[in-house]
């Protein structure tokens, strides 16, 4: 490099670091690009890229006897999804995810409301600890613990038996479809465990959104003559909706994808996650597993689109 270039008008820095600093000052966009490149590459190649390479597999098919994949474009694998047995799996998982999400909203809202508006100081700390504590212990330990709680000869049956409520439990278990021989082998059991495990993911976003509802809005609403119910309906709920939607995205998608809970607690009927696991990990049918993996993505995309249309994100 020639000397003439090193002494330029406006350039007071020397050395590599100094010249770099000048360069970034003159071209701020270059600095931005350099800073953004690693996370974007991570997101683009490692995250989205690997996802797409899996999804691409869904357009291949499998040789049904030897189990080897045939790398030719076909929609045969997607047609298999519509077989009654596979369609059942999709429907079952979606209904379970919807039920878990609705129940978590109903349970989480009062808890979050109390925590956001009434809990103070030490009480607030205890609240946070109470919500977060289950998240710190191993997921598997929790699920196996629930298997024992819900077992036919488990704690819950013992409790119902000792307070004389056994007929109630038996009546519930005698319900068609959702019932079973014991809580641990019924949909009710699977539902309870899902609800327990994902509840914190609903409480925290709702609580965060309720914290941001200004108290003076509620007072103004009262001053203008709104009843408590009206204040809740027209002021609190719309402002808390982004939190509810954020929480429901967590609970809904986590339930859609989980494959461990329904294997340990439930009636052996497959969920989408298990079907993906069985077809990919066990049967080596990666195309069908990939096609199954596309289903939650489509359902979530549809769900977010609906939420946006309903104005859930307007308050963001």
């Amino acid at each position, binding site marked *: 490099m020639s000397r003439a270039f090193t002494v330029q008008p406006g350039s007071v820095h020397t050395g590599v670091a100094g010249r770099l600093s000048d360069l970034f000052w003159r071209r701020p966009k270059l600095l931005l690009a350099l800073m953004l490149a690693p996370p974007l590459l991570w997101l683009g190649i490692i995250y989205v890229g690997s996802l797409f390479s899996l999804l691409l597999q869904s357009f291949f098919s499998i040789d049904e*006897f030897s189990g080897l994949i045939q790398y030719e474009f076909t929609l045969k694998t997607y047609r298999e999804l519509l*077989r009654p047995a596979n369609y*059942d799996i999709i429907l079952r998982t979606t209904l379970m995810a919807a039920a878990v999400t609705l129940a978590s909203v109903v349970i989480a809202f009062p808890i979050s409301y109390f925590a956001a508006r009434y809990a103070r100081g030490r009480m607030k700390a205890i609240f946070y600890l109470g919500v977060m504590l289950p998240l710190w212990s191993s997921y598997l330990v929790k699920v196996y613990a629930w298997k024992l709680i819900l077992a036919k*000869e488990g704690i819950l049956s013992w409790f119902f038996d000792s307070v004389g409520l056994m007929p109630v439990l038996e009546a519930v278990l005698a319900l068609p479809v959702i019932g079973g021989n014991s809580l641990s082998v019924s949909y009710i059991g699977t539902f309870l465990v899902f609800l327990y495990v994902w509840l914190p993911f609903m409480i925290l976003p709702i609580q965060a959104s309720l914290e941001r509802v200004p108290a003076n809005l509620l007072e103004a609403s009262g001053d203008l003559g709104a009843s408590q119910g009206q204040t809740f309906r027209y002021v609190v709920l719309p402002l808390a909706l982004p939190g509810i939607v954020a929480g429901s995205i967590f609970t809904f998608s986590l339930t859609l994808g989980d494959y461990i809970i329904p*294997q340990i607690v439930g009636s052996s009927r497959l969920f989408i996650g298990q079907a993906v696991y069985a077809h990919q990990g066990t049967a080596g049918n990666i195309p069908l597993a990939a096609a199954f993996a596309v289903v939650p993505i489509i359902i979530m995309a549809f769900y977010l689109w609906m939420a946006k249309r309903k104005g859930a994100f307007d308050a963001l």
Partner: protein
Amino acid sequence: MNRKIVYGVMALSLLSTSPGFAASVGESEGQVNIVAWPGYIERGETDKAFDWVTKFETASGCKVNVKTANTSDEMVALMNEGGFDLVTASGDASLRLIAGKRVQEIDTDLIPSWATVDDRLKSAPWHTVGGKHYGTPYMWGPNVLMYNSKVFTAAPESWSIVFEETTLPDGKSNLGRVQAYDGPIHIADAANYLMFHKPELGIKSPYELNQEQYDAALNLLRDQRKLVGRYWHDAFIQMDDFKNEGVVASGSWPFQVNILASEGQPVASVIPKEGATGWADTTMMHSEAANPNCAYKWMEHTLSSNLQSDLAVWFGANPSVPAACTNGSGMLTKEGCSTNGFDDFDQIKFWQTPVSKCESQGECVPYYRWVSDYIGVIGGR
């Protein structure tokens, strides 16, 4: 990887598989990678008394690396991915591996102990195709009927207690108190039951079913679905269900029976009058095995060492070398062999992969339909 090594290995594997060309196994490559069932390859880490790896490693100079797989389908998937030398494949995987050209023919001349293998297994159809041997027999055993000995004062005579709604000896129905295996191969157990109770269907082998026989088996399984709360997939969850879930009878492996009995649980097992299905595993060699010499050394070791004897005790299974029952190479005794069903060989229909072109009747329902239909049956279809 160095190209020269790759060519060298390819040449070696070619040499060792062309009969009559190589008379002995070459230098050890330093390691051998095996896909195996859990509990199949023990090096004294679970229980000090059960070790059939350490001595092999010192004597041969081959380090043994094990990848466990829980189902036959998983084994086929791992072998399709590659990177392994050997697999302990059951009969419902072995034919698929041969058809997919994932395993290679072995030269029995390179395995001095081949002559000691049980004559009933030497040319068994699940590892011998067109007169070519695709592996050495490893272990075999029956799928027994495990039952709670408090509920059943006498051993149940028939599989009917897990297939049809009945009243058990304790006066209560079997509804919700029985289990079945969570794998498509369980359709064969239903077919085996029908073979005995509905001879008019003309089933000759539970693995070779025409459409009518197959539908009858599925209908039986649909009735069974009403009795079964949860299907068993994981041996340890099944044991837990026998302890806490009130399950009193189920098809099972001697493995679970032995462990539950050792914990003092009231369980026992029986092979009912209909006979039983069973598994017979074969050590098979990958068609692109990177360590063929160590693989051959391991196959010889599986037949000649304490492995057959001690593994049979450990797993509640039967050795492929009959001498292991009596020669004291390990802990197995003649009584142990009878308990594990060594003499019941003829009553057992060993797992095979169902294929469309079958021997007994020309056109049969192939395995992939078993997979999707069994998922449907469990789902209530």
